[in-house]
């Protein structure tokens, strides 16, 4: 190890390592075990620390930061409860493949295993909910471990990495070593470049398709903005229809005429039927999640399936595919375009015309239609109006989890990647507000809106305090139906309308709540006044909580009931499933 600087403490060395990793912001919460790090942070001005009000929010904020910038999000929490509070956020980041480095304090090495004050087996607890984790036992390993953690978090399929830091390691002295570039990990070598032979086979299948559909996901977003550009280029070259997963929204422009909307449980009629009837399915960076496939035995039964994924364990996990290709979405698209250009394949125009005609018939069903009356605001209407007012502004959207999230995915249109931050895999209520904080920190001049439900927002409402402290002008747009809407919807459809514990009885006055935290509170219950309220929300350059009182019993459609096939879609309140949900389906969530 080559000494570059005079001997420094572990904590100072950590800060140096973070700066060398080009970290600008750390989201954290102090405590006994990490006091040396907070002392080091105090003595410098390169790293900005954002003090959250709960460690879960620190991770979600870092996720919002990471997803809107493509950089690694950094979290700093103390030992014991600090680390356990971060677990939900880490699991969320793992499920959605978000690059996070989470630094956790730990009791000094000689106390580990002693049930010391604020001790938890952090590496043990976080092993299944991180991509990788480390316990640093000697200060000499610290810098190398930090650099390795960043490499592991951002490369391959990204994910959260925990580095557990005993207090004595932070206080001992050692020389600093800068990161080695390029990083050569001794065992971890993700496959980024796809096999060319397989790309050629894919082109062959794609060119000869009669009823093709692209099905693309978060892998395209994670690959970087260039992958989204390449995706649009390739999809335009072929002229084929494309659908996005919840995680993939924005990777293909929503306004494009080849876009079928989102697919899956609350996806569009045309997207789901295209999946069912297609003859060639081109999956790029999506993982055949159960929200997408519905009943597995009836999932896209007639198609030849191509699956491009950077994680080989995502291939052939749920759905058997015909052509598996391991590689990064961006690299694969680059190769696909190159081979397509070289071969100049002739596609079957006649068959494709018929396929588009079929799709247009499904589109004509207008599956997202709803009826807005004069009395109450429909949640769909609220989002349509919101989109109308923000579409020409530089904006970012986060959501909580539930009906509002699905409506946001259906009614807000995403033209670019990295603009849509939602908890897809884990479905974490309470994600949206802290994520919006992270986005706003990264993009101080942009309009950042958390589309929320009144139940979800209460799960991390304490973060209004963080928002106030840093004067973050995030907008919290609550679709308030006084129910845990998605729970209520399932109880209506599957449990005989027995609304067990899904009614929110003593909701706070969100306007007063906002004011108590130093934010602006607005309320609207009149469809005629909605536009004015939204305009007001946008114009105030301060944090705003908007309590939009919406129709209490509106359900989110279309819906594929759990365990049903893509063609078994409920299109609206009058469209009951022909047969009651099977027992097999009831078991599914």
């Amino acid at each position, binding site marked *: 190890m080559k000494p570059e600087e005079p001997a420094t403490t572990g904590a100072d060395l950590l800060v140096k390592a973070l700066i060398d990793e080009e970290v600008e912001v750390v989201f954290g919460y102090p405590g006994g075990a990490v006091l040396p790090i907070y002392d080091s942070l105090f003595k410098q001005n390169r790293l900005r620390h954002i003090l959250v009000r709960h460690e879960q929010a620190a991770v979600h904020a870092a996720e919002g930061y990471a997803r809107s910038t493509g950089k690694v999000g950094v979290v700093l929490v103390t030992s014991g409860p600090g680390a356990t509070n971060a677990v939900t956020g880490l699991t969320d980041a793992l499920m959605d493949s978000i690059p996070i480095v989470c630094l956790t304090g730990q009791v000094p090495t000689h106390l580990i295993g002693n049930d010391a004050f604020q001790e938890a087996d952090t*590496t*043990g607890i976080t*092993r*299944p909910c991180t*991509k*990788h*984790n480390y*316990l640093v036992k000697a200060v000499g390993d610290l810098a190398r471990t930090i650099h390795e953690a960043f490499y*592991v978090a951002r490369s391959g*399929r990204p994910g959260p990495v925990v580095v557990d830091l005993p207090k004595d390691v932070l206080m001992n002295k050692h020389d600093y070593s800068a990161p080695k570039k390029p990083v050569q*990990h*001794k*065992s*971890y070598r993700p496959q980024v470049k796809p096999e060319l032979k397989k790309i050629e086979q894919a082109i062959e299948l794609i060119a000869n398709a009669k009823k093709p559909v692209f099905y693309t996901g978060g892998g395209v977003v994670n690959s970087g903005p260039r992958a989204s550009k390449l995706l649009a280029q390739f999809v335009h070259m072929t002229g084929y229809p494309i659908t996005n997963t919840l995680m993939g929204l924005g990777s293909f422009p929503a306004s494009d005429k080849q876009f079928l909307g989102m697919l899956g449980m609350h996806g569009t009629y045309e997207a789901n039927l295209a999946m069912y009837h297609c003859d060639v399915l081109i999956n790029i960076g999506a993982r055949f999640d159960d929200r997408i496939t519905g009943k597995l035995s009836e999932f896209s039964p007639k198609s030849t399936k191509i699956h491009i994924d950077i*994680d*080989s*364990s995502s*291939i*052939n*996990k749920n759905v*058997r595919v015909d052509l598996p290709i391991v590689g990064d979405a961006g690299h694969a698209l680059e190769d696909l375009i190159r081979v397509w250009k070289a071969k100049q394949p002739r596609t079957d125009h006649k068959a494709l015309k018929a396929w588009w005609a079929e799709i247009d018939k499904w589109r004509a069903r207008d599956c997202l239609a709803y009826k807005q009356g004069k009395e109450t605001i429909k949640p769909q209407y609220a989002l349509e109006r919101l989109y109308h007012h923000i579409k020409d502004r530089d904006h970012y959207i986060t959501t909580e989890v539930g009906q509002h999230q699905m409506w946001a995915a259906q009614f807000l249109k995403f033209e670019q990647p990295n603009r849509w931050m939602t908890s897809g895999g884990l479905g974490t209520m309470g994600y949206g507000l802290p994520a919006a904080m992270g986005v706003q920190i990264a993009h101080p001049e942009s309009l950042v809106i958390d589309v929320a439900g009144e139940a979800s927002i209460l799960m991390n409402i304490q973060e209004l305090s963080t928002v106030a402290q840093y004067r973050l002008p995030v907008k919290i747009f609550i679709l308030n139906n006084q129910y845990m809407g998605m729970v209520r919807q399932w109880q209506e459809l599957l449990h005989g309308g027995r609304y067990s514990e899904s009614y929110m009885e003593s909701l706070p006055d969100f306007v007063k709540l906002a004011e108590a935290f130093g934010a602006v509170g607005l309320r609207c219950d009149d469809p005629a006044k909605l536009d004015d309220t939204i305009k007001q929300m946008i114009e105030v350059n301060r944090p705003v909580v908007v309590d939009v009182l919406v129709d209490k019993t509106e359900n989110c459609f279309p819906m594929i009931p759990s365990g049903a096939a893509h063609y078994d879609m409920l299109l609206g309140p009058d469209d009951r499933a022909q047969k009651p949900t099977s027992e097999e389906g009831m078991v599914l969530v």
Partner: protein
Amino acid sequence: MSGPEAASSHTISVLVDNEPGILARVVGLFSGRGYNIESLTVAQTDPKENLSRITIVTTGTPMIIEQIKAQLDRLVPVHRVRDLTVEGPHIERELALVKVKGSGEKRVEALRLADVFRAKVIDAKTDSFVFEVTGTSDKVQTFVGLMEGLGLVDVGRTGIVAMSRGSEAL
């Protein structure tokens, strides 16, 4: 059940960094995803590079086995994953220590059978033996079964270690 979707037993060799928590990572992967472990052996095999070799015997359909291998392969400290069952001929061995208590005719018979199975006597008292037997799991099991009628009191088994035939390394 038979055919391509039938569950079958696979012996998988995994080369890993010998670091704290690696075994927990591997075992946690199996329990967390609901896979079976029928046998597991682990020990450091390369002190210079600080590598350990884990041999796992597991059962599953071809799709599950493929998943297990992919999941193991994406663990950061894993260097290599090989499915010995599908990658050509390989040899499997297991070692057992078998303690038998008895006297008279039974004691003689135990010793005679041990000779047939090429088990070594590694401890002897006037009323007991400890045998060391090595072989396939099948052979070890057969030997232990025979000892049951002859005063078996204790068994320790290592689980399977395995290696491909021929000159190729893992």
